[in-house]
């Protein structure tokens, strides 16, 4: 797996992968497991993925970013059981100038959250376990047209 990892993420290694003498600006993002979600205390998270499609989608996102900005991008997403504070996703984008580095980094984290088939199950302090739905709506309320628009299909 190139983009998905069962082991702890290491931001330094992502930075090293995109760094080069001609790229003086590196923008990074690290998403870590928070201790709360919608006002409830979180203990841990399980991440799972549709692995081959997630890998394909990550490849597409990185390719789109590198086509749109003169930047090199690295992306990694953790799978498995994570505790509060663990890094779930890491992005590093290096460019000659910081505008491109920040723009590419932001694009990659936004698209990763939106397009990559990864799911998480939260274990709350009160003992309950729930699948996270970031759309905030009951799934049945999402029309296929909205989905198609979002995906550009």
């Amino acid at each position: 797996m190139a983009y998905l990892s069962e082991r702890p993420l290491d931001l330094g290694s992502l930075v090293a992968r995109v760094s080069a003498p001609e790229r003086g600006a590196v923008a990074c993002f690290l998403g870590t497991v928070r201790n709360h979600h919608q006002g409830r205390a979180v203990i841990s998270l399980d991440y799972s993925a549709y692995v081959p499609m997630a890998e394909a989608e990550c490849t597409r996102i990185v390719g789109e970013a590198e086509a749109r900005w003169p930047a090199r991008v690295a992306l990694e997403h953790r799978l498995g059981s994570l505790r509060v504070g663990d890094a779930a996703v890491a992005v590093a984008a290096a460019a000659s100038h910081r505008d491109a580095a920040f723009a590419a980094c932001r694009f990659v984290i936004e698209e990763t959250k939106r397009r990559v088939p990864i799911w998480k199950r939260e274990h709350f302090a009160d003992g309950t376990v729930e699948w996270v739905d970031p759309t905030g709506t009951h799934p049945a309320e999402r029309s296929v047209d909205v989905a198609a628009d979002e995906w550009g299909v």
Partner: protein
Amino acid sequence: MSVSAPPNVTVRVLLFASYAEALGREALSLTLAAPATVQAVLARLRALPGGERLPAQPLCAVNLAHSRPDTPLAEGDEVAVLPPMAGG
């Protein structure tokens, strides 16, 4: 001359996360009358126990690419039914 019966199409269906939990399984094979579409797969899934918990139009992918309800299916295709993404 005899008119041949339309051939059947067998596809592999993958379920994930809350949808796998709703239907109590992560994968199954479905044989559909041709011409088959993603929509036909969803109709069959809804008839299974727990299938009523699927949303009206869940996101789907065919062979690792996002699909639409009318995306046509061929023999051996992999159809994935995807709950809302929650990475990051």
